[in-house]
């Protein structure tokens, strides 16, 4: 027997010895399914209250928040970039043409390595779902969001969120993520932060130090 097989069977034998008689897998699955989940699964807020809550949470983290209609996305992104003093952004494949504000440079960063991303002015992306109660954006490896590294290395992240992507509770977000649970997934709640030194919250240690969110209503 190879070392690794021996180690595996030793650990499993030790666990089984401690637990005693094992149940059949059907019985275990049934026991699991019967666990009571009486915590709050769905939200109750109206769309307007929901978006206000989401905005409040984001502002509390120190993110910038903007709203626009679908027709105004490109123009609003342009004004956000002007405000941030950016001349353009990197982006994953799949970001719609209409988002690319006139007068700014947008480069497809698919396949960029970390050094190249480090030199960009920031990243533009969409998201899969957002959680109002916790002010979180959830990004997955799909078109418009791309690999995890894209929202990690650049110092600035601008994320576009559509109103119907915002849910109130954490369980609602997981319900939406159920079918894509094996994709690389990142929950982002505000810019990178630490409170390791005297419990003072400092924005931006290693991840992006600046986060803007554009809510499309």
């Amino acid at each position, binding site marked *: 027997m190879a070392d*690794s097989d021996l*180690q*595996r069977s*030793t*650990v*499993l034998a*030790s*666990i*089984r010895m*401690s*637990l005693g008689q094992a149940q059949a*897998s059907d019985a275990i699955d049934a*026991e699991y399914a019967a*666990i*009571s989940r*009486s*915590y*709050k699964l769905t939200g109750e807020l109206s769309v307007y209250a929901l978006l206000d809550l989401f905005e409040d949470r984001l502002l509390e*983290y120190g993110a910038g928040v903007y709203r626009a209609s679908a027709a105004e996305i490109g123009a609003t992104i342009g004004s956000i970039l002007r405000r941030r003093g950016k001349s353009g952004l990197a982006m994953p494949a799949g970001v719609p043409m209409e988002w690319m504000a006139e007068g700014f440079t947008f480069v497809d960063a698919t396949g960029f390595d*970390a*050094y190249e991303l*480090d030199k960009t002015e920031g990243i533009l992306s969409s998201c899969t779902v957002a959680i109002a109660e*916790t*002010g*979180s954006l959830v990004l997955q*490896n799909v078109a418009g969001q791309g*690999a*995890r*590294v894209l929202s*990690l290395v650049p110092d600035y992240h601008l994320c576009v969120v559509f109103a119907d992507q915002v849910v109130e509770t*954490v*369980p609602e977000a*997981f319900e939406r*993520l159920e079918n894509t*649970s*094996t*994709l*690389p*997934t*990142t*929950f*982002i*709640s*505000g*810019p*990178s*932060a*630490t*409170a*390791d*030194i*005297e*419990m*003072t919250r*400092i924005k*931006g*240690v*290693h*991840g*992006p130090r600046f986060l803007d969110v554009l809510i499309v209503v």
Partner: protein
Amino acid sequence: MSEVPVQHTQWNALDFPDAAKVLLEDSQTRKNVQHATNVIQGKRNKVVAELPDWEDLREAGARVKAHTLRHLDYYLTKFEENCVRAGGHVHWASDAAEANRIILGLLRRHEAREVIKIKTMTSEEIGLNATLEANGIRPIETDLAELIIQLGKDRPSHFVVPALHKNRQQVREIFQREMHLPELGDKPEDLATAARTYLREKYLRIKVAISGGNFLLADTGGMCIVESEGNGRMCLTLPDVLISIVGIEKVIPSFRDLDIFLQTLPRSATGERMNPYNSTWTGVHPGDGPKEFHVVLLDNGRSPILADKEARQTLQCIRCAACLNVCPVYHQTGGHAYESVYAGPIGAILTPQLHSMEEGRSLPYASSLCGACYEVCPVKINIPEVLIHLRGKVVREDQATLAGKFSLWNIGMQAAAFLFKDAGRLSMAEHMGLVGQKALVSKNGFIEWMPGMLSGWTQTRDLKAMPAQSFRDWWAKEKAPHAKSADDGGVR
């Protein structure tokens, strides 16, 4: 494979009372610890109060964890199967030496001279850094607090904010010296920027990373890591090879269960509604993250804990450290007094069990049993109950040895048991005590010094003198004559 020298960190050198005595004199550390725990606790209380379903979340979390532990072999093999199917590699390690050998083997295969690390208490538990250094590989901690600890040649004192015992001036001194930055300021921003610059170059260059893990997801074979700074994401995403060392108790049945723990963990740990970053991934995903992913499943004393039904709940812990922040004992001493990788109330029950009750035997006594740790625990571990259970174990084990049998404590306790067994004996002892104490009672009505074996008690506290009339005497005079027939024997 050639022999791997395994190094252990210097834990368990002292008993809690001795270590605590030293730390209680360090007023700077106490001040830092008390400030930090007060801040976190205040924030935690606020964001927990926001959730009307907090108790339901605790209950569901406890049930999911207890269920998983009851069927741990089932869920671990399920995790393994799904992780391997997704392109991951799963290793099993019975103890620290085995885990170190596996990790070192992987690093040697990739000819790694340096590795970047995410904060992981499991690696502290197996003494990984010391082992790597002894084998010519340089581990670089990337969590700001762990970096402070590593550069300061210190030990973590809290498992969420490991350097909370250091203030900004102390951190500045460490960074100035170790990063060669004589001009460095002492604003937290200055210090964080220094760490950012110091580490960014390493993230971009170093090809192998080591992490712990918050959750293993059995149904997808995926993993979840919860963090704040983004250093975790850097290590999980940029290198070609990722090795995660995870305790076997960290598995949960399903991705979906994260909807409980991602609510309870951040609120309990740092008092935030959500921590800045959570990452989940499954095996390897072409074009996204490491090309090679290894999980080392670590037993290291965990599986025997499953056999003890009263103490098994210890393994439900999700390492939020809420019990540390709320503990009056931790509050006074800080984490180093526990002489253990895992400090505070959870450390007091976890450490002795991980060491088969051979080390950390004083830890079950490092508690006032006030119950605050149980109240805040997001997975409802009844820590006071387990503390008492473990105290019982310590006593029974001591009584089984010759030295223990004839120890002063045991003789004293046996004598007390003898007295309490019979009302007549107790009453006689009370009267003897009244006579005996006369010479010892000070003017203020307290006994400040006792002779012989009793002196240990008065070394740290004064004892109220026995009243002239005992409750039993009072009862006999006041009540007993009228209630004699009904109460006969009841009070005896």
